C-alpha cells in the first residue's frame, strides 16, 4: 500500500471522526435521531469517502500514468501536446451544443427580441386588460372604495387625508365651496372648464342682480358668498342668489347642462372636468391629472361626491 492511499484512509477516518464529534450518535450516526438527520449524515460520509478516493485515483494517475499517442509538431517551452482524438461522447455533446446554439439564436430566443420597454409594455397591457375586465361594471360602493384609495395617493398630498384641504392649502372637499372661493369667482369671473369646455363666467362687472336691476354690490357679494358656502341654507343671500346666480346655476344651484356647473354639490362630471383641465382660483392652482384612467376618474368622482354628503 502506497503513501497516497494511506493518506486517503487517514483523511476518511479523520473526517468520520470529526463528523461523529460534531453530531454524535444521537444526531444521526446511531439508531436514534430522525431520518432527515440520518440521511444528511449518510450523505456526508459518502461524500468524504468518494472524494478521498477519487482524489487519490487522479493523484496516482498523475504520478504513474504514461501518456501515449503521436505528439503534435509544435511544443511550447518543451511542453508538447498529443494528437489524440476527442472522446466520442464529447464530440457528440459539442456538435449538439452548436446546433442548439443556432436554434437558440434564431428560434428559441431570437437575438434582439428582448427589451426592457417591451416587457414593461406587456406588463402594462396585461394589467390594463385585467383591470378593465374586473372593473367593467362597478357598483357605487366599489367605486367609492377605489376612489378613496386613489385619493390617498393622488389627491391627499394637497387636499389632505381628511380631504379638508390642510388648513386652506387646497380646497376643502367636504364642502362644495368656501366663502372666499365664491367671493373670488364673483369678483374675478371664472373660466375653469368645469363643464369640460370654454364657458367663461363674467366678473362682477358683468353680473346683474335681476332683483335690483343693477350690478351686484359688495354687500350682495358678501351675502351670497356666505349663502353658497353655507350649503344654500337659510334666507340671507337667497334673494341675491335668485337674482344674480340662479339664471345660470339653477334655482337649486345644481347647475344647468352646457351653461354652468353645480355650485351646490359635487358631481362626478364636475370632478372629471377638474381632473382633466386642472383649476386655478382663490386658493391656488391645481394641476391637471391626465394620467388617470377612465375608471379611476369615475371612481374619484364617486368618492369626492360622497364626501360632501
Amino acid at each position, binding site marked *: 500500500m502506497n503513501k497516497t492511499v494511506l493518506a486517503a484512509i487517514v483523511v476518511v477516518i479523520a473526517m468520520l471522526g470529526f463528523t461523529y464529534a460534531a453530531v454524535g450518535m444521537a444526531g444521526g450516526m446511531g439508531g436514534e435521531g430522525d431520518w432527515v438527520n440520518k440521511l444528511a449524515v449518510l450523505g456526508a460520509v459518502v461524500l468524504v469517502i468518494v472524494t478521498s478516493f477519487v482524489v487519490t485515483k487522479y493523484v496516482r494517475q498523475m504520478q504513474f500514468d504514461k501518456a501515449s499517442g503521436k505528439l503534435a509538431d509544435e511544443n511550447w517551452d518543451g511542453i508538447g501536446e498529443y494528437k489524440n482524438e476527442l472522446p466520442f461522447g464529447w464530440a457528440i455533446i459539442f456538435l449538439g451544443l452548436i446546433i442548439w446554439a443556432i436554434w437558440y439564436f434564431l428560434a428559441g430566443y431570437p437575438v434582439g427580441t428582448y427589451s426592457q420597454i417591451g416587457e414593461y409594455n406587456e406588463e402594462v397591457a396585461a394589467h390594463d386588460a385585467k383591470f378593465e375586465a374586473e372593473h367593467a361594471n362597478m357598483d357605487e360602493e366599489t367605486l367609492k372604495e377605489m376612489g378613496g384609495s386613489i385619493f390617498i395617493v393622488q389627491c391627499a398630498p394637497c387636499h389632505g387625508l381628511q380631504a379638508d384641504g*390642510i388648513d386652506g392649502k387646497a380646497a376643502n372637499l367636504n364642502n362644495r365651496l368656501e366663502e372666499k372661493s365664491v367671493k373670488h369667482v364673483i369678483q374675478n369671473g371664472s373660466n375653469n372648464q368645469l363643464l369640460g369646455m370654454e364657458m367663461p363666467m363674467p366678473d362682477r362687472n358683468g353680473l346683474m342682480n335681476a332683483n335690483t336691476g343693477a350690478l351686484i354690490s359688495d354687500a350682495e357679494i358678501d351675502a351670497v358668498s356666505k349663502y353658497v358656502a353655507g350649503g344654500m341654507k337659510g334666507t340671507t343671500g337667497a334673494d341675491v342668489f335668485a337674482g344674480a346666480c340662479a339664471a345660470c346655476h339653477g334655482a337649486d344651484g345644481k347647475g344647468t347642462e352646457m351653461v354652468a356647473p353645480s355650485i351646490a354639490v359635487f358631481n362626478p362630471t364636475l370632478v372629471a372636468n377638474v381632473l382633466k383641465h386642472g383649476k386655478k382660483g382663490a386658493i391656488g*392652482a391645481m394641476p391637471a391629472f391626465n394620467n388617470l384612467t377612465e375608471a379611476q376618474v369615475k371612481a374619484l368622482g364617486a368618492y369626492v361626491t360622497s364626501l360632501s354628503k
Partner: protein
Amino acid sequence: MFHWLEKHPFFFAVAVFLTIAFAGLIEILPNFAQASQPTVGTKPYSTLELAGRHVYIKNNCMGCHSQLIRPFKSETDRYGHYSLSGEYAYDRPFLWGSKRTGPDLMRVGNYRTTDWHENHMKDPAAVVPGSIMPAYRWMFKNTADIDTAYAEQVTVNKVFATPYNTEIPMADGTKATVALAGTLDEAKAAALEEAKVVAADMKDQDVKDAVAAGQIPEIVAMIAYLNSMK
C-alpha cells in the same frame, strides 16, 4: 501572427484591448449617439430654472430624490411616463440619483404646483403627514445666484451648442424658444420677470416683497426649476 502574440504578453494585451474596444465602439456608440438626442419637448433651462437647479444641487436634493422613472408599472402609475435618455440632453450634470428615500421628481411639475411647493418646503410634515423630509426655510431667505446660472448658460451655449434663442419643437406640435440674454443685466431682468410669475402664486409676504424689490429668493428659483420638470 497568433503565435507571435502568444509569445509577447504585452502586445497580446494590447490586441485584446483593441478587439474589445472596437466591439464596444460599434455596438455602443451609435445607439448612444441616437438615444442622447434631445426628445421632442425637451428644452434648455432658462436662467431662473438653472439657478433653481443650482439650489437643488447645493442642498443635495439628489441624496434622497431620484430623477429617473424606471419602466415599472408601479412607478409610471405614480410619476408618469418612464424617463428617456434624450430628456437629459440639457442636464449637466444629470441628477438621476439612486437613493430613493423621497419620491421621484422627474415629472413633479406635472402634478405639483407653486403653492404646494411653498407649503411643503416650509414644513413638509404639514402637507405630507409622517414625512421625514427636513424643512428648507433658508431657501426663503437666501438670494439665488443668477450670475452663476447665466455663466453656465453662456458656457453650455458656446461649448455644447445648447440651442438657446432657437425654435425647439414641442410635443404638442408648437415651437418654443428659450431666450439667452445678451448681457448679465438682461439675464437678471429676464430672471426677475420669471420670478414675478412664480411669486404671484406664492403666499409668503417676505418672498413677494423681495421679488417686488428686485431680489430673487432661492425658493422662487427652486420652484421655477421644479415646475419646469415635466
